[in-house]
């Protein structure tokens, strides 16, 4: 893959990752040749709709694929180590220590019968072998870091005693406990109200700035992307279709799917514009293909207004269209 930076340049390099569900002839590829790189201190957003494979990519990196899923090809390099070749025990030592994850639903990801303090110190004592007292002190610091009010009292509370926003702060504190190089945040604000979402976005931006943590942000929400991302990789039906800097992608998207997605979102700043009555939203016809559907060519071809014959026959490769900007489209990113 010519357009992926050498693994040494970045913190994380995912190369040609292919994941299939099922066995033998009934195996269906849920991810195909997914490649992207994440630089140190950067926030890369993986953007996609249902079935795009964005969460599956995260689970593959963490070594947490469900048992029916298998990685059939590719590498996941974290600081040069291939995580896919690591033993189970090695992965246990890696997760939470070098890479950690913030999930969408803080209520189901926290253990309801353990205190916040216990959940924060568990990882520290396991990975860093620190004393109970040192772990407790660190837990208190972590709660302060994520802006919890009254942190001493929170340590003794249980998840159900906290609001959704507070629980997500605890999740973020847990993810930060061992100072990982990389945090994977899977829809971290989707379950939250707008005002709480803004608080969590600000917290993540603040943490990135202060600690230099790299973030792999997984989301379907282009607003969250516009707020947080340095670079963006767009996924569609298990494939990366476009990668670019955040501004570049919003200003000059090259893949027709990216263009369509950006145009389909109701924008507060445009819709309430002067005089005119309702502005019609641009529509993407059809819907996202279901995971089982086998498509020979470009998966977006059936919905694409620009599709030519070649599109449904052959998957276009990722091509460089501008500096740091690649797209997979026979029409818009032709050689």
């Amino acid at each position, binding site marked *: 893959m010519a357009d992926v930076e050498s693994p040494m340049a970045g913190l994380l390099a995912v190369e040609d990752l292919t994941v299939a569900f099922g066995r033998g002839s009934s195996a269906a590829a849920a991810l195909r040749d997914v490649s992207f790189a994440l630089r140190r201190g950067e926030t890369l957003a993986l953007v996609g*709709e*249902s079935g795009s494979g964005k969460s599956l990519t995260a689970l593959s990196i963490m070594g947490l694929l469900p048992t029916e899923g298998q990685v059939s090809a590719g590498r996941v390099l974290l600081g040069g180590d291939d995580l896919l070749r690591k033993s189970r025990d090695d992965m246990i030592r890696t997760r939470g220590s070098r890479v950690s994850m913030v999930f969408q639903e803080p209520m189901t990801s926290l253990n309801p019968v353990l205190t916040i303090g216990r959940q924060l110190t568990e990882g520290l004592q396991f990975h860093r072998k620190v004393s109970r007292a040192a772990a407790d002190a660190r837990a208190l610091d972590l709660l302060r870091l994520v802006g919890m009010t009254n942190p001493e009292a929170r340590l003794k509370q249980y998840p159900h005693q906290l*609001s959704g*926003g*507070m629980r997500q702060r605890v999740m973020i504190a847990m993810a930060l406990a061992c100072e990982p190089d990389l945090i994977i945040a899977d829809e971290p604000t989707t379950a939250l*109200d*707008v*005002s*709480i*979402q*803004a*608080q969590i*976005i*600000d917290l993540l*931006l603040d943490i990135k700035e202060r600690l230099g943590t790299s973030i792999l942000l997984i989301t*379907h*929400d*282009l*607003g*969250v992307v*516009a*707020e947080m*991302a340095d670079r963006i990789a767009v996924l569609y039906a298990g494939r990366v279709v476009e990668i670019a800097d*955040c*501004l570049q992608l*919003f200003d000059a998207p090259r893949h027709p*799917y990216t263009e*369509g*997605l950006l145009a*389909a*979102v*109701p*924008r*507060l*700043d*445009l*819709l*309430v*514009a002067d005089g005119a009555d*309702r*502005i*019609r*939203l*641009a*529509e*993407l*016809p059809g*819907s*996202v293909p*279901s995971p089982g559907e086998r498509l020979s060519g470009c998966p977006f071809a059936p919905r694409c207004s620009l599709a030519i014959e070649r599109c449904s026959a052959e998957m276009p490769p990722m091509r460089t269209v501008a500096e740091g900007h690649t797209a997979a489209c026979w029409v818009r990113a032709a050689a």
Partner: protein
Amino acid sequence: MNAPAPALILDAVSKEFAQRRSLFGRPAAPVRAVDTVSFVVNPGETLGLVGESGCGKSTLARMILRMTRPTTGHVLVEGKRVDALLPSEVLAYRRQIQMIFQDPYASLNPRIRAGDLIGEPMAIHGLARGAELETRVADLAAQVGLSAAMLGRYPHEFSGGQRQRIAIARALAVSPRIIVADEPVSALDVSVRAQVLNLMADLQTSRGLSYVFISHDIGTVAYLSHRVAVMYLGAIVEIGPARDVLRRPRHPYTRLLLEAVPVAHPRLRVRRREVLPGEVPNGVGLGAGCRFAPRCPMAQERCRVEAPTPRAIDGTRLVACHFAEDTPDLPKGLAA
């Protein structure tokens, strides 16, 4: 003079829920889920209801739909009090008002074919049968963008967007005047949302429908609404023309809510926006003052002792704030 009569009127509607008694039987104060809400929706108009979880917007929808009774106040549909309908009038009322739910996976019976789902309301209301029913079902399906060939399929054979089209056709089957839509596109993929929103807009124009459109997504509300009502802890804090409310909010809660909406373009990023502090309290034991005062950056002594009553601002809207004139404008680039 000859303004058309409103399709829907809410007249000082409140809903209280009793709380469980405490251990020693001391009766706890009831929770006011909806507090003295009044508005009208005119024919052909969309009223957008915006608010965070727990603000009472779904309870309000349930009262409009006669799924729960107001504790005080009245809901009037086409001039008739919904809570005082005779049993013989209920069917006629249901022909005037229909609902579209959030989750098209849960709201359609999985064992019934799409064509029958759409035809069922017409059969129940005795509007058509036999060949005429079939023609009307095919007609409706075409209006919402479903082909006749799809009508023999079961819900699981459709995508989320198509299911929501079935739900819309089903709601339209009895030719209602009003549709209450509770988060109708929230469960859909981004690329499919625009299709359903455009469809709802087209149907409103062609049929003169009134919508009560409930959503936490302010962009979506902005797209479909002529007027917007912002709810906080059970009460409407600001209501007026969508353009005015969303562009130049006068209630500090509306303003902070709009400021919290993620920007549409990375160029509009505002570092250190003014974040709405804290979270929505649970509505138990509201004090004497303004319900928003504990979180309001503008709150003064008066706000803590005297609840503001809604008053007209700029001649176009009602705002429940003592200091609405002092609310600062949104930062440039945000919202408008």
